[in-house]
């Protein structure tokens, strides 16, 4: 099992009332302090290096625009720096936004340089991006999906087809494609795709043999998506395995239970634990972004099956002080813990809970999401060390015992299919009973 490190690199501190009242996207950048920003960028890079030293296999970077919880607006810059200052870890992009960069050829060039500088450690990943990414970049949400598909195909072609060649598509028009620097990995860097629930994305991955990385989605619908992946894989002529799947999980550890709980409460500040829920629906799904069907599936996905709050609700006017009391309460933490949105405890305590997730989903990639709370650099470093020392070895052992092979141990899509009619499930639906 490949164990990767992820932090969303939140900007902090920030007036908590502001994030509760306005959501985590759309707050005016007059509240950004460049002195704080300069310190945080460097701390987050240092923490990624520390994660490599602590024993993680990979460092995951993501990209959001105008989001106060994620400073990685141009994640390729961080990736390029890490390519040089780390030695062993995979650098995993989950993911780049070919729909908003405006020039996918430039993206192909940037990623090729990162792969070259890192000595072939890049894992490329592409995402459609949420509505806020469209709004932040002036991209037309109505063209998001078709542009995503065209840009994806174009980038692969730019990496693999000797130039110069010509591309005159629906959205992209290049008459002289000939990037000089090409990726070190052949035919191109591996591609993983993160997702929330969209079956279209799952099919997209399965058809192309790309590992699909579920981003802390509720387990029940995730099992359905795993099955859909396996079924699509069978239609494409292969048996999917753990190497085709990854799962991202937020884990907050402390040396003691009390310390872990104290750190976990910081997660709740400003409503950030609800993350996307703290974005107004009209920003998350602007006109044209989703098909009608996709919107209703999305609404179902974000309904907590264990009776917690629905994340996408029209906000309207509400009392910030009252909302703060609810958001910052131990009860709220309990709801998040009961639904596995967050796992809290000592390393020995959290491992049994993580094992339950692994029993259900059997992923070959497990990404530990570190705190989005306002932790200082020292606390973050301490957590990284603690996880490296006391959690990763145990998880590795469990992964080996369960046969959770990673995409680096078995090429995704290389496992033969017994017969086109019969495919094996990867997810173990029966294990959901233990959750």
């Amino acid at each position, binding site marked *: 099992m490949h164990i990767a490190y992820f932090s969303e690199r939140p900007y902090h501190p920030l007036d908590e009332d502001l994030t509760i009242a306005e959501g985590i996207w759309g707050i005016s950048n007059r509240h950004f302090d460049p002195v704080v920003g300069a310190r945080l960028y460097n701390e987050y890079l240092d923490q990624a290096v520390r994660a490599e030293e602590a024993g993680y296999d990979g460092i995951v970077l993501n990209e959001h625009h105008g989001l106060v919880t994620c400073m990685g607006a141009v994640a390729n810059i961080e990736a390029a720096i890490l390519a040089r200052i780390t030695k062993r870890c995979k650098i995993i992009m989950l993911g780049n936004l070919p729909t908003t960069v405006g020039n996918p050829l430039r993206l192909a060039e940037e990623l090729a340089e990162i792969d070259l500088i890192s000595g072939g450690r890049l894992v490329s990943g592409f995402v459609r991006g949420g509505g806020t990414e469209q709004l932040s970049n002036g991209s037309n949400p109505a063209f998001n999906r078709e542009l995503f598909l065209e840009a994806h195909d174009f980038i692969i072609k730019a990496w693999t087809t000797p130039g110069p060649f010509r591309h005159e598509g629906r959205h992209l028009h290049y008459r002289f494609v000939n990037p000089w620097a090409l990726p070190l990995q052949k035919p191109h860097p591996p591609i993983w795709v993160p997702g929330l629930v969209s079956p279209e994305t799952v099919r997209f991955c399965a058809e192309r043999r790309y590992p699909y990385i579920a981003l802390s989605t509720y387990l029940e619908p995730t099992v359905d998506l795993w099955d859909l992946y396996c079924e699509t894989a069978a239609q494409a002529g292969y048996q999917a395995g753990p190497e085709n799947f990854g799962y991202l999980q937020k884990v907050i550890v402390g040396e003691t239970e009390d310390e872990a709980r104290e750190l976990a409460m910081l997660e709740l500040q400003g409503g950030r634990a609800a993350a996307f829920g703290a974005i107004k629906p*009209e920003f998350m799904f602007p006109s044209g972004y989703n098909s009608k069907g996709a919107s209703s599936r999305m609404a179902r996905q974000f309904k907590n099956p264990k009776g917690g709050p629905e994340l996408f609700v029209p906000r309207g006017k509400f009392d910030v002080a009252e909302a703060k009391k609810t958001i910052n309460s131990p009860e709220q933490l309990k709801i998040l813990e009961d639904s596995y949105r967050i796992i809290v405890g000592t390393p020995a305590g959290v491992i049994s809970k993580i094992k339950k997730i692994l029993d259900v989903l059997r992923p070959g990639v497990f990404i530990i999401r570190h705190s989005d709370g306002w932790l200082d650099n020292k606390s973050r470093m301490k957590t990284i060390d603690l996880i490296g020392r006391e959690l990763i070895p145990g998880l590795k052992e469990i992964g080996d015992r369960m046969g959770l092979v990673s995409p680096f141990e078995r090429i995704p899509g290389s496992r033969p299919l017994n017969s086109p009619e019969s495919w094996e499930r990867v997810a173990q639906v029966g294990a959901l009973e233990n959750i």
Partner: protein
Amino acid sequence: MTVAVTQEQVLIDDVPCSFLAAGSGEPLLILHDELGDIEWRPWHAELAKRRRVLIPASPGFGVSAPVEWISSVRDLACFHARFLRELKIDRVDVIGLSFGGWIAAEMAANCASQFARMVLVAPFGIKPRIGDIRDIFLMSTPEYLQASLNHSENFDRHWSPQLSASREEARAEVARLGWSPYMHNPSLPHLLKCAGTGPALVIWGERDSIIPVSTAAQYCEILSNAKIGTLANCGHHPEIEADVEFSRLVRSFLVE
């Protein structure tokens, strides 16, 4: 006497285009707004007493399926010109509501002679000299309807859960066509100015919070023979908020 309203269909380049038709007499084309409500309203009935009223559902709105090759409002305008040709209508009066007003203006810029008289109701399409067109995509659909009306009580009368799905789809199509440049076409004023358009009435709600009211004067500068009709206490949709006065103003202009 009530006028029978029929739902009809015409094929345009193998694409079925649905339209409501009612009344008899000289044809009158009504181009719907960005909410895509293709429903029969009392002011339509008033007009249908003397005219054959035609209300096409643009592709991607209402019951008309989206058409991929339509990628701009000008394309959509050409589609509607084709709609008139298919119905063998050479010359027609037109009422364009908001987004539909933009379509009508594009049609006139392409071929002014197809319209005898034009009524443009708070049309998008040109960039205001003063102020901006409000970003309607930073709002949910209910928020947009609320913002486009001057009186909040009108919201309750016009917010319909039954229409919410079709309004979402309509806004998605408007986003597809009008996202960038945002809800205007830089070439439109230049082409419209020399198009030789006939008499035009530009109606604006004096409390429009979506498009600055001063844009009415810009349209009148561009159109060769236009006048402004301002309706008091109305927002962006005077045909909703002051339908009786609106209807009177339009009928009086059309028989001038």
